[in-house]
């Protein structure tokens, strides 16, 4: 029980930290842009981890969900002239449906079939986006609308010009994801998912419908990933198959989650903010080419020497300290 309470406390502190940093830097376009990137990666990483850390199903192709979410919203808003909010909703619904196409064939079997199948989907979807007319092939889709302009009383919010407005929006999504994760972990569903992660055969023997919980975790993960993808496309305003299905969206969520700690809910958020800030202010300065090599090395060192990640190791130390005191 102690661990769950400390998880809530950490999530609370992180929520306050990101919100206050957004408030401080909302008028600085460069820092706000870096924070948007960090929050976006944090959201995808958190979503990845609901499935990976929470349920033990490792995805090497979350770019499939991210890119499809981005394309659906882009197509709905540019070719069917829907409102971006409806575009986002459409993206989430279709990506959750897509996730069933990955989960249903592979989750009935035990083993790493899911990990490989989603990798194959990410490849094929990029190929499809390159060849279809509706996605405009390798030229990509341009002039994708922003979330528009609103005024509340005397205050005006313009998503087209203000990085700060977009920052608060992605933070809203991130915080929604974070607390969904915290709520899931504390619930019956989260406990069942944990059982599936630890030992699928035993979980099944105890009467847990493992297929159902794996699909549920996948659906939630796909939902938040699509949310991130659709946000991205209305923030950047253009989309190509390379940017939508970029290996970045498959690799970096895993690196961030591992680095932060896959056994915690908040770990991926901490990992993503640390990595993006390190990347912007340090690694890109030192290594203009091949900065991904650093992530590969970081990835392998983390999994070999501290597989619990920074937050996971910290939470564990806290736990041990308290036990000794008591």
């Amino acid at each position, binding site marked *: 029980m102690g661990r769950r309470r400390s998880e809530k406390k950490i999530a609370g502190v992180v929520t306050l930290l990101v919100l206050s940093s957004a408030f401080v830097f909302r008028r600085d376009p460069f820092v706000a842009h870096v924070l948007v990137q960090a929050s976006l990666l944090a959201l995808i990483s958190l979503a990845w981890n609901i499935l990976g850390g929470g349920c033990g199903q490792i995805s090497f192709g979350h770019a499939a969900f991210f890119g499809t979410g981005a394309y659906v919203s882009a197509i709905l808003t540019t070719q069917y002239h829907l409102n971006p909010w409806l575009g986002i909703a459409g993206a989430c619904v279709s990506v959750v449906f897509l996730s069933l196409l990955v989960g249903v064939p592979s989750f009935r*079997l035990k083993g790493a079939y899911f990990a490989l199948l989603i990798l194959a989907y990410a490849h094929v979807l990029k190929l*499809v986006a390159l*060849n279809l007319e509706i996605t405009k092939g390798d030229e990509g889709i341009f002039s994708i609308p922003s979330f528009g302009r609103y005024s509340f009383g005397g205050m005006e919010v313009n998503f087209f010009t203000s990085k700060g407005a977009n920052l608060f929006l992605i933070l809203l999504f991130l915080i929604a994801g974070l607390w969904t994760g915290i709520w899931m972990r504390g619930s019956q569903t989260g406990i069942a998912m944990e059982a599936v992660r630890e030992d699928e055969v035993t979980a099944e023997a105890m009467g847990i419908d493992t297929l159902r919980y794996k699909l549920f975790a996948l659906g939630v993960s796909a939902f938040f990933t699509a949310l991130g993808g659709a946000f991205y496309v209305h923030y950047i305003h253009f989309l190509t198959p390379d940017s939508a299905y970029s290996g970045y969206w498959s690799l970096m969520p895993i690196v961030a989650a591992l680095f932060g700690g896959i056994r915690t809910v908040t770990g991926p958020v901490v990992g993503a903010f640390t990595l993006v800030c390190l990347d912007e202010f340090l690694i890109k300065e030192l290594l203009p080419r091949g900065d991904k090599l650093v992530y590969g090395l970081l*990835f392998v060192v983390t999994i*070999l020497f501290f597989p619990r990640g920074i937050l996971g190791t910290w939470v564990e130390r806290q736990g041990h300290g308290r036990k000794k005191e008591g």
Partner: protein
Amino acid sequence: MSFSLLANSIASGLLMGANYALFAVGLSLVFGVLKIINLAHGELLLAGAYVGYFAIRGMGVPLPLALLFSGLSVGIVGYLYYFVVRRIRDDELNTLILTYGVGVILTNLFLLLFTADERIINIPWLTEGVWLGPVQVNRGNLVSGLVSLLIIGGLTFFLARTETGKMIRASSMDREAAALVGVDVERIDRFAFVLGCALAGFAGPLFGIVSHINPVGGEAVTINAFILTVLAGLGSIPGLLLAGIILGLGEAIIVVFASTMFQGIFALALFVAVLFLRPEGIFGRRE
């Protein structure tokens, strides 16, 4: 559509199928014996392709020697790689993640060292067409298809008849029982892992002859290799040949009637179909 076009593509599809089997054999061996999916398999194959490319193009090494050289150098990399994997192999999920990370490191090393350019190993006498009765095929495809048959055949013989081969099969069927009857399973694991990596390296230059060497192309090789491994049935080496031919023939016929997009979709559809219809593979046994 002319008959000869279809006949030619069926012939090259058959040969490509044999090649696919060779590109998959390392992954299948490691998966069968150690139950580890080596997600860096494609990247190791590309490493062999780069070694072969520079040996053949830069130093004029003849092809057979280049194949052995690539196999040997990737085998040495595999030996070091094995000691990293062994540290955490009890944890199945972490091992899977680790092999993915090794693939990422290799891909980015290729990008740093060799840039993003696509390369092809161009050996003049291999690019010509040859007539096989009524059909014409590319000599490179033919040579590499024959080498593939040789390797698959040799490996099958090795596993069936030799002492070490029998120990490998015993260890892959039941590790504990094999250890009880005196098989040094640790040594067998190491041997199979290094052999699997060396086979990937050996196949590399042939991959560079029949296809493009692209620094980020490793993932696609790994996916195809895994699809064939599942289709063939866990650890079935001869089954790989049939699985490879199903994929190669299917793709070749689809390209005649439709676009390259559907070629990619075919591999995915095959994967999903196998998971639904026969997850134990064509030659596998239901557990």
